[in-house]
């Protein structure tokens, strides 16, 4: 079963890579032209052609594809056409920043989502319950870009709580984490609220209650645990949102990271960088969904039995 999953994953990656390569080749102009045919350099046609030859930019697409794929398989991602920096260097610099941001934002999003869902569904907070129930819909409609700028202006420039410029590594994570967590927390909270409502109405909850369990016990042991499954599926899917959000967040906050790297690579037709980004994003996607699938049986005993049988 694991082998089959890995096989599937490799296939998904290969298809992703090929698709990305094809789409990038189909775009007008290429990375070499974007950099060297720029009027800033005013190169002669001859010099431009010599440089294209050095890059092998005019070789048949298929040859380029095979060569690039060969590089990927052997771990050689090549060099950014736009700057000349090795793609591996770019990745080594970008990945830790993005991973730190993504993990923190995700953790904060989970806390936020739980908080909203609990307040929104608890009898005790009935007075504010409706407000909290409508909060996710509001949060999901906030554009990350705008949110980032508002948070910077307010928290850093007005209140001066955290510097944005010249911040330490830890400081530099605070505002982007908050910015990125909000659009992730929203759908999580939405799904959680709905499934908590659903589980609450199930007969087994009445049964547990009749046996004399306290509300807090019921909520944490029975309701929440059962309501987690759909939220977990959602969390796996939200990873895509996380990557998209990181692109915008990193651009707004001027952070180095995969997002920032992607924005620049797209603008410059920087194929080697883009291919690496696409493959890494796809790998992470596949991995996260694999982890989610493996977590199901841990959380739900019924699924465990099915797997064994």
């Amino acid at each position: 079963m694991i082998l089959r999953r890995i096989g599937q994953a490799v296939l998904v990656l290969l298809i992703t890579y090929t698709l990305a390569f094809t789409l990038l080749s189909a775009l007008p102009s290429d990375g070499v032209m974007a950099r060297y045919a720029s009027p800033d350099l005013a190169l002669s046609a001859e010099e431009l052609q010599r440089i294209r030859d050095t890059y092998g930019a005019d070789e048949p697409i298929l040859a380029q594809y095979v060569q690039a794929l060969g590089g990927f398989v052997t771990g050689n991602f090549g060099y950014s056409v736009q700057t000349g920096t090795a793609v591996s260097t770019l990745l080594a610099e970008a990945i830790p920043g993005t991973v730190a941001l993504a993990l923190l934002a995700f953790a904060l999003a989970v806390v936020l989502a739980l908080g909203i869902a609990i307040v929104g569904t608890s009898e005790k907070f009935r007075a504010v319950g409706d407000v909290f129930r409508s909060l996710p819909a509001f949060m999901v409609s906030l554009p990350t870009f705008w949110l980032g700028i508002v948070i910077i202006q307010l928290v850093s420039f007005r209140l001066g709580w955290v510097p944005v410029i010249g911040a330490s590594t830890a400081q530099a994570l605070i505002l982007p984490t908050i910015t990125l967590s909000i659009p992730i927390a929203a759908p999580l909270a939405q799904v959680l609220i709905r499934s908590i409502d659903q589980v609450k109405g199930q007969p087994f909850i009445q049964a547990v209650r009749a046996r004399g369990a306290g509300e807090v016990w019921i909520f944490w042991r029975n309701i929440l645990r059962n309501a987690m499954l759909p939220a977990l599926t959602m969390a796996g899917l939200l990873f895509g949102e996380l990557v998209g959000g990181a692109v915008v967040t990193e651009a707004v906050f001027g952070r180095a990271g995969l997002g920032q790297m992607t924005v620049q690579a797209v603008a410059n037709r920087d194929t080697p960088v883009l291919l690496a980004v696409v493959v890494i994003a796809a790998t992470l996607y596949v991995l996260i969904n694999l982890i989610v699938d493996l977590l199901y049986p841990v959380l739900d005993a019924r699924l465990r039995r099915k797997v064994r049988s």
Partner: protein
Amino acid sequence: MSLTKRLARVVAAVVATTLGAGLLTACATTGPDDDVQRLTYLEPIFFATLYPPGAGFYPNGGVVNNITDRLLYQDPETLELSPWIATDLPEVNADATEYTFDIRTDVTYSDGTPLTPENVVANFDLYGLGDSDRTLTSSEQITNYERGEVVDADTVRFHFSAPAPGFAQATSSFNAGLLSDATLALGNDGFAPGNATGVIGSGPFVIESEDLGTLLTLTAREDYDWAPPAHPHQGRARLDQIDYVLAAEESVRVGGLVADQADLARQIEAPVERHLRDQGLQVISHGTNGVNNGLSFRFMHPLLEDIRMRQAIIRAIDREEINHTLFSESYPVARSAIAHTALGFRDQGDAYRHGRAEAEALLDELGWVPGPDVIRVKDGQRLSFTINEAVPQPRSREVITKIQEQLRRVGIEVHLNPGDNATQNADSLSYDNIQIRHTMVGRADYDVIKSMWHSDNRNELLNGDKETRQVHDQQLEDMLQQIASLPAEEDRAEMTGRVQDYLTEQAYILPLFEEPQVYGAQPYVKGFQPDAIGRPSFYGVWLDHGDNHTEGDDQ
């Protein structure tokens, strides 16, 4: 414990940790250190290469300019050349094909190696010819370069295959910044982000460290003692450290200045200049001393072939209105193809004035009559043009939108070419895609007008076909060529004037405004002087924290 309490605790803990960490670390770093002259400089874009011939791109030049010395120094205001690493102005032969420089012998690179004649020749051999195998390009500014020659221990000579009167100025620009032998041996990746500390110059600042894509730290070189004699400051730089910080969002650059988190920021858009001044900040603008921001009409396109069409477009565009709506006094309305401060400027009077009635009369005369939706038609064809977006230029999209609105009033349709910078550049190579090109180029030499329109260079009018070598207007091409080949300065000036007149006569272009580089700075930043084309130069800068700083703290 009730659910409420438990929840409240969790929330309180999260909030407290987040804010506490922020406040603590904030307190730890905001205390001003008066002993260290440290400047935080906000850049909208991180540098893409430090290879000098590729330093025309603003963020690249902003770094290269501060870490390298040049043979000659160009005064940013008078544009006059004077000695720097060369001890005198060069000796030039009668037809400007041989330049001889005497150079200083006491200069060292920051890696300790001496700046020798052999090294100077190696620099220019690379910049003059490029090295395609290493994908290192030749410099746009060094034309007809043949070879360099070491004459003796303090003399170098450069030979050109054809007259190169622009060479003296070219040696003064950061595109010809001198680098150590080890740096010259690097490949394209050696000049790329990630390797900045390996790029070694002899300039007043040294690259100390780099966080890829976000932060570059330069420190003063302690033993720097070879500033241009014409520079008001001598010896070691006054600043100890410069942090180049990436702040792509304009609101972050402006907010960072206002909130006192940064000292200097590049690329302040016109609408916020007033806001910064109101906050007690300085707005420093410097012209780019080259070809103005403007439109080039690709006159070989069937719709633009008739001069009356080009004249009609010129008359229909109200440049005063564009400036008034979109820009500020930092952006003077253009009076010719090149800036009024550029070498060889010749005022074109009211040649580019607005006159809607004249425009309409010209269009009527050409037989274009208003169609069903205001836009004029002739033989079933709509009068429609596509203009590129000049992505690197200030507010290009808004400028084109404004032009769209103005031309529509006389019945001409304008499309803004969609796409990013790479697409715009690719599309601009054909007049089928882009009939009217929006762009500019900065360089403080007569050659700049040739760079802009000669078919071997940027070819913005598409006067020459790069493939077929066919030239549409040979007269323009020859005049431009002469600017770059007449040995005597007064002849180059005269020819530059004639080209400006010719461009006006033929209605080939519409210059819009003189494009500046605009910086925002704290009031205590003193001695900041952008170079001849507006790139930041930090050598003479110091931070005068005296009284201003306490004022700043009160705000």
